[in-house]
Structure formats: C-alpha cells, structure tokens
C-alpha cells in the first residue's frame, strides 16, 4: 500500500523518547504525549524551554512519567495557527496520542484546545491561558498548569499601585511588530509616571532595547510581566533591563526543595539557568506523571485520569499549587527584580504580591462535559 508507506514516513520532525526495554510494568503500553510548541522564529526560545523543561522531567525518570514509559513527540508549530491546528489533527487522527501539551501562544491555543478536548483527549497547557478557556469556555479535558493570562498583569497592577505610581502607560501589541519607534515617541509625549508593557518573545527584546536607546530607561521606570524579563530575554537585552521589576509565579531562586533540584538538574543538563517557561514545562510533565501514576498507566480511563490530574498531587517547583474549579492554578505571584550578578544579568526574588491567587474567570466556568 503505497499511500500507507508514504504516510508512515510522514510522522513529522519528531523527537521521540523511546521507552526503555525491560522496564515494562504490566501496564506496559506507553503513554503517548504530543507536544506542539514553537521551536523556530522570534518566539523559539519559549518553546525550546518548555520542551527542555518537559524533557528534563521525563529524562530524569529514565524515559518514564509516573513509572510508565512515555512516547513524547515534539513538533514545531512555527508560531503559526494553521500549522498548529494541522499538527493537532494529525496527532489525534494519525498518531492517536493520549495527551497534548506545549502550545506557547494563546491564539494557537484558542484554535487547538477545542479540537483536542472535543476529540475526548486531555490538553495540559504549559503556558497559554486565555480568558475564554478559563471562564465560559472551560472544559473538563483542559488543564492549565502555568497561569491564567491575567495573573502576572494583575499582580503587576497591584505592585505598581502599591509603589504609588498614578499615571501608568500601557503598551500591548495589536499584531506582531518589530520596530517601536512610533510607539515610543508617543509614549514619551504622554509623560507617564511608569510604563507597563506586554510584548511576548522577541518583540519584548526589541522594545526594551529601543526603550533604552531612546534614553527613557533612566527617565520612566519600566514594568512588565515575568516572561518579558526572563533569563533568555535578559541575555539579549543586557544592561538595558537592569532594575526592572517584573511579576511571576516562579523564580529560579525560589526556596523550596523541588525547585532547588529542578534548577540544579536543568543547569547541569542544558548549561543555562531555566526560565519561567522551562519551569512550566517541567511542572506540566510532573502533573501528567502524577496522574499517570494514580491511574497506573491506564490513561484511557479518562474519568479517573482527569480526577487524578485535578488533584495535582505533585511538588510544584513554584511551591504551593492547586487547581481551582476551572482547572487553572491557585498560586502565589511574586515580584522579581533584574540585577547584575557578576558578569550575568539575572532576576532576584524581591517579594510576594499575591498569596493563593485565583484568576477572575473561575466563577464564569460551568464545567463542560
């Protein structure tokens, strides 16, 4: 059958973690996990860290999660919605995966997640947390282990208010742009007390650099969400980001045993300090592992698998963590500060803004079955 051969050959650029031979329990059938994430383009660093964090968890357990072998297929979506949708369709119809995870961007998640949940499979978000999926569009097959998108911004709003800033200029993209000359000039003319911006990935790097080039870094303090000042971003912005406060549900110097082990293992495996994304990828794997263990590998028993996921019975690297009724995190949000440490520009934990914080959409969620 020629077509069949063609299609068998067509399993896209996959990085497979093969199950270890001989280690099979009686539940031997490996759990298939599909990861759709961004590995190319300006946003590649984000997907790479989610993948590496996730793989670290799998590798450190000898290719297993929760004691059961895992077949992980990672496919690059190129930050393209249609590509992501096609990859998801293929994973569901052809590869017959049990769980899908990994999408970085909310617009991609909005297109892909309903496809997955309606096919009766579980989606675990390791980053994107659009409000539509946290509120009215929540689904029993959809879990977000990272955050609801508003979390970091809510915390920053609180923090900026606490610090006494009154006139704050907000900048967020309508669509991808790379040059902010026009926006920065407008911003300066508005003479705000502070600037808060939300520009994910490479857009944030450009903005921070151009903000410094325009001489504004010394004049108007800059605030942003944690991912805009993550370790990968700081490598590119250099000094331009020094002193900026940013909010995050995780920090590499957060003091708990799970985190200490994670940061050390990540540094050893990849030779760099993990980012927020890496922590989320790692926690996604830990969460999935905890549920696989609870159902003894029988992830096909979706009710039991979901119930186990809901319990979130794992030691999160961010410390206290549990799911709210909409299966989004209830967690602390911290503030970090960009500092120079030796030759490196890095983040230092500076305080806690919210404790046991839940998103604003949970009340709107009537869990769909």
């Amino acid at each position, binding site marked *: *059958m020629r077509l*069949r051969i063609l*299609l068998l050959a*067509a399993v896209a650029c996959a990085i497979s973690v093969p199950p270890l031979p001989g280690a099979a329990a009686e539940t031997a059938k490996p759990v298939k996990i599909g990861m759709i994430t961004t590995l190319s383009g300006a946003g590649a660093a984000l997907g790479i860290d989610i993948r590496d964090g996730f793989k670290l968890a799998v590798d450190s357990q000898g290719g297993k999660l929760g004691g059961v072998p895992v077949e992980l297929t990672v496919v690059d979506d190129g930050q393209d*919605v249609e590509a992501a949708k096609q990859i998801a369709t293929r994973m569901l*119809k*052809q590869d017959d995966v049990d769980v899908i995870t990994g999408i970085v961007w909310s*617009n991609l998640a*909005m297109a892909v997640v309903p496809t997955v949940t309606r096919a009766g499979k579980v989606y675990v978000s390791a980053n994107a947390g659009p409000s539509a999926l946290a509120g009215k569009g929540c689904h029993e097959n959809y879990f977000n282990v990272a955050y609801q998108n508003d979390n970091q911004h809510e915390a920053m709003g609180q923090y900026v208010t606490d610090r006494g800033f009154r006139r704050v200029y907000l900048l967020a993209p*309508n669509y991808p742009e790379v040059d902010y000359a026009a926006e920065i000039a407008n911003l300066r003319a508005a003479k705000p007390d502070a600037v808060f911006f939300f520009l994910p990935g490479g857009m944030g790097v450009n903005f921070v650099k151009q903000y410094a080039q325009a001489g504004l870094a010394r004049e108007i303090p800059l605030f942003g969400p944690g991912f805009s000042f993550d370790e990968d971003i700081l490598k590119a912005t250099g000094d331009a980001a020094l002193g900026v406060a940013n909010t995050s549900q995780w920090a590499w110097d957060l003091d708990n045993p799970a985190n200490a082990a994670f940061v050390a293992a990540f540094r050893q495996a990849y030779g760099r300090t993990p980012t927020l994304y890496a922590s989320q990828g790692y926690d996604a794997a830990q969460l999935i592992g905890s549920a696989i263990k609870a159902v003894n590998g029988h992830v096909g028993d979706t009710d039991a698998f979901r119930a186990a996921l809901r319990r979130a019975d794992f030691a999160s690297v961010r410390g206290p963590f549990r799911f709210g009724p909409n299966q989004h995190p209830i967690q602390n949000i911290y503030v970090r500060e960009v500092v120079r440490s030796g030759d490196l520009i890095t983040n230092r934990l500076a305080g806690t803004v919210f404790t046991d914080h839940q998103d604003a959409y949970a009340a709107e969620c009537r869990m769909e079955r």
Partner: protein
Amino acid sequence: MRRRSVVLAAGLALLLAVPPLAAIAGEPFAVTLASRVLIYALAAASLDFIVGYGGMVSFGHAAFLGLGAYTVGIVASHAFDGTAVPLLPFAWHGTDSALIQWPLAMLISALFALVIGALSLRTAGVYFIMITLAFAQMLYHLFLTLPTYGGQDGLNLWRRSEIPGLDLADDVSFYYLTLALLIISLLILKRLVHSRFGMVLRAGKQNEPRLQALGIPTVRYKLLAFVIAGAFGGLAGALTVNHTEFVGPGLLHWTRSGELLVIVILGGLGSLYGSVVGAAVLLILEEVIAGWTEHWMIVLGPFLVLVVLFARRGLYGWLAGREAEGD
C-alpha cells in the same frame, strides 16, 4: 483509448478509491490529507484559469481563498453566538447552512475580485503581479488587525457547514463532497475555456492588440475571467474553513498565493486537470520529505528552480503526453 483519457480515468478511479483504501490500510488521516489536496487543487485550478488561459499572472489569489473562508467563518460565528451580522440593512443572525454559506462565499470573493481586478487590470505585466500581491497583502493586514473577527487569532468554526442528508463532520462524506465539487468546477471551467469567451481569453493572451483592433473589449473579458476565478477561489476557501475548522489571516498570506502558483506550474500551466496532480504532488511530497528531514524546503526550493528552467510542461503534460496541450 487515447492516452489522455486513460490518465484521466485512472486519476478519477484513484481519487474515488482513497477512502476505502485508507480504511483498509488503517490510515484514516489519509482521507484528511486527500481532502486538503482536492481543496488546493480547486483553488489552483481557478488560478490556472486566469494565468494559464488569460495570461494574468495574479500573485494574490490567496485573497479569494481567504475571503471565502472568512465569509463562512463569520456567518457561522454569528449563528453560533446568536448575534446579528453587522453592516446589514436587516437583522440576520448568520447560518450554518452550506447552501447559503458557500454561494455567499463565492459571491463575496467575486465582488472583491471585481474591485481588485478592475484596479489591477489598468496595468499589465510586472505591475499586475505586484499589484495583485499588494492587494492580497492589504486584505491580509485587514484581517490581521481587525479585532472584530479574531484579528491575529483567527476564528474557530465550531460547527461544520450543514447540508441536508450529509454529515460533513464525517471525514469520508466531506471528502466525497469536496471531490464532487472539484469535478463540477473543473467541468465548468473547461466548458468556459472552450466557449467563445474562452477563445477570446486565450487569443488575448497571444495577441491582445490584435483583438482590440478587432473591436473586442479584451479588458472586460479579462475582468470577467478574474471574477470567475475569484468565485471558485472563494468556494475553495469555504471548503478550507470546513476542513481545518478554523480560519486565520495566514490563509491570505502571500506565501499561500505563491504556493498556489507553484501548484499550477508543477501540474502544468493551462491544463486545469494538472492542478490536481500539482496539488497532490506538492502536498504529499511535503508530508513525505518533512518526515525525513525538517529542512524539506532546502529540497523544494532548488526543485522549483529546476522545474521552471527545464520542465515547463508540468506533470500533467508529462503524464498525458502531447494531447494535454489541446486541453
């Protein structure tokens, strides 16, 4: 039997056999891929109609694909939300019916083709290429930035279009419907090519000044052809949004227009049926080579250059022999 008839009959038999073969092979995804091939074949055939027969090298055909898809997506989203479609003189809450959605998609695409064509046909040659490209990019930007219908995020199609007696959510039904529409469209386009209208169109490609000297308003003929191509592009768009259950601005991106041109040339310029061969080869090659290496573009790029330089007749011409040129 003539070679061309054999090739066409074999091709049709193969297309009809895809779903049962996929079922036997236990590869249901093959039907999804094959549907995609048919949809792209339809879009490419409508482009071939103006490029291959009318000599209008449109580099913005993805615009019509996108407009058709967005028309269905928008109408369906209003039906899903129960909200009224804006900018209408009457209150209409959209619909899920394909019998309304799809002709509407063709109509909207045709209307835009009328405007874009009327402006672009003021020019010719390289200007025409770049202007059609620029208009398509303008629509791309419009959908990218307009927040009402998803902007950069695009629109989910929550329910596939409805046709009484057919379940389009079923991949096999959807495949056969797409196949039927493709065949009907190809036959219509073929008839047009061989009609008096088509003769003027083809003659215009050879020697436009002579026709004008004969008092034939060639621009009007070309514009009509452009509009027809736009309408069939819109139909392909309506099918695409049902196929992926999603429409985003990426569908209008200029690289998509480029892909359509590639399919036309690969299949054979001015052959219509060649579009099916071109689409099948490009999309299946993409699947296969992408399985071997993630860097498949490094193969495709030089391959395209070679096709242009050395294999101008296209695959259909190679399959069907000399007779294909009478098509």
